[in-house]
């Protein structure tokens, strides 16, 4: 396998209109530079799965009109308040929402990782989360007490898009404790990554680094994007840009303010 190192725009060509795209939760290393590049390119009709939640990334993509369907457990700016474009899109009916609960998304991705059509999950029974999901089934468990249990169909994304501290020239990516990034890559047909930097040598050659490495076998393309999670944080590397997120929360509160945000921070590439 040769190194799949590419420019950011080239690395993202796999993410086409209508694509089933999985992205990680807000604290796992969110590919924000890549997200801005996708918005600039004008990707459309994404079926976006946020594993299991999202913050700025989903809100930006929704506000920019890139999302047709959203499947996740929550979208919020956390300490900075509700996610305004998500909230507006849901109340106006602009996107289709598939409400889930965190472990259901993890299990559905693990089903794809394991090549099984479904995974069972406890909980959910009697909730409206289940009531509104006609793609989830309930069976009586054939073991023990024949009690009812939910079966979740596998989610096999077309592309998993992640951001990580480093990659090597063989396509291996160091993800550390963020092991859901490995599950996403395993579950998806193809994985695309941005990284802070390139590691000299082969990450798999060092047993200590290898323990936190996603093998390049799963990775289709990689682009270097320094501070590529900004304004979100990258665990153990940099924190969130609180001032920027507060500014976003203020600007995105209205459609006009959001358009101005896009103009200033996405289209003009000032911060990308």
């Amino acid at each position, binding site marked *: 396998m040769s190194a799949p190192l590419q420019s950011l725009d080239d690395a993202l060509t796999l993410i086409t209109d209508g694509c089933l795209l999985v992205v990680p939760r807000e604290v796992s290393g969110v590919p924000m530079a890549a997200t801005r590049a996708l918005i600039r390119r004008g990707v459309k009709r994404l079926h976006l799965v946020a594993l*299991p939640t999202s913050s700025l990334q989903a809100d930006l993509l929704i506000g920019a009109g890139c999302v047709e369907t959203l499947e996740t457990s929550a979208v919020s700016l956390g300490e900075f308040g509700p996610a305004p474009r998500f909230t507006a899109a849901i109340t106006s009916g602009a996107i289709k929402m598939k409400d889930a609960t965190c472990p*259901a998304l993890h299990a559905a991705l693990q089903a794809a990782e394991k090549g099984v059509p479904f995974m069972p999950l406890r*909980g959910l029974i009697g909730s409206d989360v289940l009531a509104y999901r006609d793609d989830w089934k309930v069976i009586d468990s054939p073991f023990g007490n024949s009690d009812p249990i939910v079966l979740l169909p596998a989610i096999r994304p077309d592309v998993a898009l992640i951001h990580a501290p480093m990659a090597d020239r063989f396509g291996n990516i160091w993800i550390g404790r963020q092991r859901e990034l490995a599950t996403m890559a395993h579950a998806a047909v193809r994985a695309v990554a941005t990284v802070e930097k390139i590691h000299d040598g082969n990450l798999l050659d060092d047993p200590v680094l290898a323990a936190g490495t996603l093998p390049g076998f799963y990775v289709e393309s990689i682009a270097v994007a320094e501070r590529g999670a900004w304004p979100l944080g990258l665990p153990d590397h940099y924190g969130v840009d609180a001032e920027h997120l507060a500014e976003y929360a203020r600007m995105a509160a209205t459609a006009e303010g959001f358009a101005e945000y896009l103009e200033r921070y996405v289209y003009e590439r000032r911060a990308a």
Partner: protein
Amino acid sequence: MNAAPREFRSEELLADVIARLIGDVRHVAVGNASPIPATAALLARERGHGRPYVSLLQSRKHNFFTDGARELFDCAGQGRIDVFFLSGGQIDGQGNVNLVSTGDYAHPKVRFPGSFGSAYLYYVVPKVILFRVEHSRRTLVPQVDFISAPGTSSPEVYRPGGPIALVTNRCLFSFAAGRFTLASVHPGHTVAEVIEHTGFEFERPETVPETPAPSPKTLKLLRETVAPQLAEVYPQFAAQVFGISVPSPERGRVRVGVAWRY
């Protein structure tokens, strides 16, 4: 012992109440944007000389998970998490919580962030403590518009867990047999006020005790031992409540419960 009025902040009272609810358990996990439950969990750990084990999911230091974002849920499924905290845009008298939306689900009036892990953790964690600072008829309703997770389940449903209490800025409710009971009213608040501001019906004893104020020993523990630990995860909160300031390069400002403002 001490009838003289003591100076304490409501956050300190609430943390003390929650710490008592936690009780003698092995492992307490605290989700995101929950500084008061986090304070309570760390207080319980100080009182228990290192027990319970406390996981603050927002922290790197107080968070042992190394198997990715799923480990919390797997861990709960294994029965290894004894106490967790949930909130809700609406909570009703049957213990149902709503973290999704008000009005019709297809055409919501107000949209909340979403159910997070509630539709699972509410079932499998033995002691779930509901925590909602705002105690009003808007938040505490007769019937939630969307059940993110139900307060109780029919007997055939696997459910080792569920709610044990609801803590608000006015009072403490206990929860059993599908109903809330007013357990105590916080100093400065009254039963009449609780009735006025609660949208659901609840049981109450003839005499409702006052929530005990935090003891001097508790206040000392909170301010001197717990607060500095808290500052790593909730620097803004630690500064506001305890006057503790620790610069943290990885964290932004924290505003308490702001995700629930609507």
